[in-house]
């Protein structure tokens, strides 16, 4: 029984933090996100060399061969730094392919995803409250042994930068299929959309008579349901890791402010009206950490627990982070909502994180259902 990080994981943790503090401080983040692509290809190359893009991909495909705990350790830090990159989507695409695809598909995609040459995206969600389990909206007709797929997916994270995309569609027998396809294929259009949180890029993905060859299909029927559900759980857990990092950062900034800011002769952190909300945020962050660690562990070690664990983590984290964002701004007073002060960047991140991979409404209902209601 050991519910903590290994020494290697602690090391990975502190190296990731050190790297991001040095290479991507928040003023650098502000510069990067004002570029059209919203991330820095050079930094992307560097983190790929550090092994981050291939964290959970086996060594035989050029990955680091590590596990989901290592993955969330890194994502906690990218969340803390608000590091702008398509890392989450690429990691989850790689993780799903590594765990569920055929050997040929692994050969085809994993080396590129591990090296960072491929950037992934997951065009799976119907809407945030109800991720597309069951019949997916894009529909397919048969074209020989291939499919022709048409339909639209909205607000797809990292789509504008993706080189390959995971899609879900149903055929004329209402069977679900998952396929991984190059983004540059004829029949795929990505329309970039503006976002409140400039550190993330999203886009609407339209499939118009897209040809999906048999070798593109990862899973079909019940298998596809299982893979889709697991992929969405991975997305929820990865998002929770970034929430933990971002929430910890905004909390630390606010604690520091409460120590430094003097009003009526005392640091404002002395007053219980400031101290107690900060204590409650701490309790929430500790709880997010616990729920997250368990969910990440379950993905690999106890998959039957993963759906409930992932939904608990994302539901709790979503609500807590929403409150932490608003509370931190309030405790800062006027300075908190100036453009210049970094705390607002995290408030905007909380707006992004809420619907990502299912909002609290979706995940609470799932917790209720899996809990026997």
């Amino acid at each position, binding site marked *: 029984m050991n519910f903590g990080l290994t020494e290697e994981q602690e090391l990975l943790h502190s190296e990731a933090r050190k790297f991001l503090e040095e290479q991507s401080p928040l003023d650098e983040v502000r510069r990067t996100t004002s570029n059209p692509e919203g991330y820095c290809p050079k930094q992307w190359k560097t983190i790929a060399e550090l092994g981050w893009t291939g964290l959970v991909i086996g060594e035989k495909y050029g990955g680091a061969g590590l596990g989901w705990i290592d993955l969330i350790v890194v994502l906690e830090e990218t969340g803390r730094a608000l590091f702008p990159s398509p890392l989450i989507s690429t990691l989850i695409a790689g993780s799903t392919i590594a765990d569920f695809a055929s050997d040929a598909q692994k050969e085809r995609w994993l080396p590129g995803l591990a090296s960072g040459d491929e950037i992934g995206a997951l065009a799976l969600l119907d809407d945030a409250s109800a991720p597309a389990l069951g019949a997916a909206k894009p529909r397919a007709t048969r074209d020989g042994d291939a499919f022709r797929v048409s339909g639209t997916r909205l607000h797809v994270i990292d789509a504008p930068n993706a080189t390959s995309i995971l899609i879900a569609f149903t055929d004329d027998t209402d069977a679900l299929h998952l396929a991984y396809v190059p983004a540059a294929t004829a029949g795929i259009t990505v329309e970039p959309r503006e976002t409140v949180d400039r550190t993330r890029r999203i886009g609407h993905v339209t499939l118009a008579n897209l040809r999906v060859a048999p070798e593109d299909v990862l899973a079909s029927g019940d298998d596809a349901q299982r893979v889709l559900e697991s992929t969405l759980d991975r997305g929820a857990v990865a998002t929770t890791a970034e929430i933990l990092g971002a929430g910890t950062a905004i909390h630390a900034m606010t604690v520091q402010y409460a120590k430094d800011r003097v009003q*009526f002769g005392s640091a404002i952190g002395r007053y219980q009206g400031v101290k107690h909300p900060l204590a409650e945020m701490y309790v929430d962050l500790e709880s997010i950490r616990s729920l997250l660690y368990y969910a990440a562990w379950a993905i690999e070690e106890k998959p039957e627990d993963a759906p409930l664990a992932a939904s608990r983590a994302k539901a709790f984290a979503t609500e807590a982070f929403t409150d932490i964002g608003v509370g931190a701004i*309030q405790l800062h007073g*006027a300075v908190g*909502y100036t453009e210049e002060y970094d705390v607002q960047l995290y*408030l905007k991140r909380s707006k992004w994180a*809420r619907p990502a991979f299912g*909002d*609290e409404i*979706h995940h609470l209902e799932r917790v209720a259902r899996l809990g026997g209601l």
Partner: protein
Amino acid sequence: MDFHYTAEEEAFREEVRAFIAEHNIPEDEHEDPDALEGWHQALIAKKWIGFSWPKEAGGGGGSLIEQFILKEEMSEARAPALGSDFMGLTWVGPALINHGTEEQKQRWLPDLLNCRSIWCTGYSEPDSGSDLASLKTRAVREGDEYIVTGQKIWTTLAHKAQWIFMLVRTESADRYGGITCVLIDMKSPGIEVNPIPNLVGDHSFNQVFFNEVRVPVANRLGDEGQGWRVVMGALANERTGISESTTMVQQLDRLKDLARRATRGGRPALEDPEVRRQIARFDCRISAMRLNGMRHLTHQLKGELPGTETSVNKWLRGPLEIEMHDLALGLLGPEAVEPGDWQRTSLVFHGTVIGGGSPNIQRNIIGERILGLPKD
């Protein structure tokens, strides 16, 4: 208890409605100077700018109940503000009327009433937020002038104002008694205005630096050391929260519209009892704000001192704003990650709430001044 109005009051309400029918301008033109010019001239002709001020000061001499009716109708109609200079009309005019010399009144009041000036107010400083009385900007007297040095922050509209109405320290030892009120021409040498854009990039706040700015002693309002009294007195006619509740009702209507077209857990949001209850709770609280305001107004009409009652509505508003935006963004679902009206106000409403004093300050005022609990 009587919610009926006298015939005269009803007639005045009709007059306001007729005015609005004739002069009101659509909300998307509220920033349009040409459209506003007509609106302002019509208001000036009615003496509805400075309506609460006595007639001898050039104001409208409106009774409390008439002021209430005017404000209520204007908010209901989503009409533009009653004048172009919120700060000037709220703070500077009343302070001049109460504490100004005849010469000072002649000099500044007409421009205020005729929308020919814009004022900003200088209270907050970098190290004094909620704790206004800890201000440090100093004014040292040299002959007929004060030499003012220091800085103000969160100065709304300083980049557009001709004048600043501000507090300076003329004596350092006495926390309240060393504070003096001066009116300074924003074109004076030594003033520098730096914008502070907010988190959506809008510019309304500024930082204002004063570097040995020379201010004629004639621009001092009230005596030296009376600044605190001058400013606090201007608050005597404080808001009752009724027009704020009207704004909140309009926001609630928008939220209901959003709920009518949104889904929740895959079903129409209005079929979700939680959504219905949350909206009903907002409705109850907004109704309470309005009725609290009516009770407050009744106290004012009876000549009872307004005191600290406004803190009640100020405290009600903060959590309301937070929870209404929380529901709105939830209803928007994934669309909430894209820019939009609710998304925008979910980022900036904190300004509204903090602008009325931080929520902790409101609770301290209630706890200490109303309930008599010991000061912290």
